[in-house]
């Protein structure tokens, strides 16, 4: 089973992620088990899916956290996708999911992000990292989380900016 980094530890990934549908989102059959569905599928099948406790939603970089909105609070997992690592919209989306919509569950980065982004992503509220590349060195990735241990700005991890914490 593929692995991921979650809360600083390397664990097995028990979730499967559905690709965006080619056809109608309403027609997609969501399988049993822990499934991360695309935002469009969630929107189209919200009624049925809400009844399940093993559904997560992933938001693509060109989709808006506002379209998931407060629904996030009822989900165990929300993922933000990086179609390419240079596409930094997921950083803002993650913060909105946490800070605007009060999501407390697993916030996962998926897609093509790179190890060197982990520290910043975790500051934006992401606590799980599932690399596209199954051969990514997760131990090294884990270490990158600690690239910085002190920061100037407020973040999800530390709501007080440094200027308020300075002696």
């Amino acid at each position, binding site marked *: 089973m593929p692995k991921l980094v979650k809360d600083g530890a390397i664990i097995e990934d028990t979730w499967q992620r559905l690709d965006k549908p080619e056809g109608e989102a309403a027609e997609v059959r969501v399988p049993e088990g822990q499934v991360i569905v695309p935002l469009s599928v969630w929107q189209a099948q919200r009624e049925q899916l809400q009844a399940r406790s093993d559904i997560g939603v992933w938001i693509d970089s060109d989709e808006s956290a506002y379209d998931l909105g407060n629904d996030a609070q009822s989900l165990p997992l929300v993922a933000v996708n990086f179609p390419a690592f240079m596409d*930094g919209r997921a950083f803002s989306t993650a913060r909105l999911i946490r800070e605007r919509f009060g999501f407390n569950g697993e916030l996962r980065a998926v897609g093509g992000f790179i190890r060197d982004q982990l520290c910043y992503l975790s500051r934006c509220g992401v606590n799980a990292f599932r690399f596209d590349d199954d051969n990514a060195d997760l131990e090294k990735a884990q270490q990158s989380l600690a690239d910085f241990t002190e920061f100037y700005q407020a973040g999800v991890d530390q709501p007080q900016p440094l200027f*308020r914490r300075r002696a």
Partner: protein
Amino acid sequence: MYIYDQYDHEILRQRVAQFRDQTERYLAGDLSEAEFLPLRLQNGLYVQRLAPMLRINVPYGMLNSTQLRRLARIARDYDKGYCHVSTRQNIQYNWPDLDQVPNILAELAEVEMHGTQSSGNCIRNVTSDQFAGVAPDEIVDPRPYCEIVRQWSSFHPEFAFLPRKFKIAISGSEMDRAAIQVHDIGLQLVRNGSGEIGFKVLVGGGLGRTPVIASAIREYLPQEHLLTYLEAILRVYNLHGRRDNKYKARIKILVRAMGAETFAEAVEQEWQHLKDAPSTLRREDIERAKSYFTEPDYQNLDDASAQAQLEQQASDNIAFGKWLSRNVRQHRVDGYAAVTLSLKPTGIAPGDITDTQLEHIANLAERYSFAEVRTTHEQNMVLADVKKTELFDLWQEARKLGFATPNIGTLTDIICCPGGDFCSLANAKSIPVAEAIQRQFEDLDYVYDLGDLDLNISGCMNACGHHHVGHIGVLGVDKKGQEFYQVMLGGNAGNKASLAKVLGPAFEAEEMPEVVQKVVNVYLENRTEEELFIDTYQRIGIAPFKERVYAKAS
């Protein structure tokens, strides 16, 4: 000047360690070219035509003599003995070895300097007025706010992978010397009716392919909300700025597409959620930042007698008088003046400076100006706090060292990007053209008589040489593999910002001095007593210039 505490040092130390590791991984083949690219850019490292180029931030242009000496040492030990002052007040090294860059950054960190976010699609080094704190027309000293923004933007986790680069400039005076109208965000410090401090916020200005003058999206933002409001702007941009086409990715394109009003509303909506968050500045936070920019130990001086002495010296020595009128500026404090050291003698690439020159400037700064200097976006250096009674001595020393060319603000004080000699994006060389024009106008008296005249040269549309806002702008273009130069007239930086208009078909490099001469002649023939070049241009328009320059040889 800001002084690092243990937090700043620790953060910077971690950054150097991070980049050292990234560089090692890249050299070992563990990090791909594409992945290393934004990481090295965010540490200031470009790969240029001939060699890497390392850009070091000079936060809002402030340097002390220790830093100057360290920059000199790095130029000597890691480069070819010189560096370059950029048009964004930064320092660039043109020949460092890639594997040495982490060592250079470690040396810089010791003197509280770095290349963090000096390039790449992130928030760049905030720029300001080189006369901050000493200008008589200053409303509020912008430097404490620059430092607040510097800290907020450094290693900002949310905004390190923006659609495109992002530049913020802050001005605190009536005359805008920070070109805030052509930045992604321009902040003008103002006081409201009750004397409280705030900002007028401009967004979406910029040069480059699509030059735009910024739009005001807020007339008055109380100072305590500075950071949350910036965060709102950046978030709207990060989420909505275009990412499909790098030429359409700057915030100016987004502002234009949405319309300034709609953009302002989007920011306002976002801000309503961020307003009053812990990032709101308390009085003591602002006071703390201000405590680093207190007045130096000014003496109580007799301005009238100092002034009388200067006038005497100026009439005894014409060369000194010219230098005084071009390179020396009024100071807020009696008995002091601000001096611009020219880095533009003819024959030297504008802004280039050697290791020993840097050390000489460090000496001058220590002897005459509280050991501090400022870099300018016109690519010169400023000693901001010189006693008027010592100006003559300073002039004599500066002259021996080659920093006293009395050309500040004149035609030969050319702003010029590195261009095709160094830059891999260039369409054409810019330095040789600058030099040829300087040679055409070697007669200092003549140049002096022309008065204020900005000539700006960029080697391509990226406009690092700010050609759109030069009174005379020159843009290098490429036609079928050959270098040509397009001439523009009527641009203006500062309060009355305007963008230059294209004069007509482009010229070959050899023609350029002659073309500029013709443009200048039209001015000389048409000017009234009190008119500067830009005034005459605005009165008579572009047509007479066009006629002269493109007249068929008879």
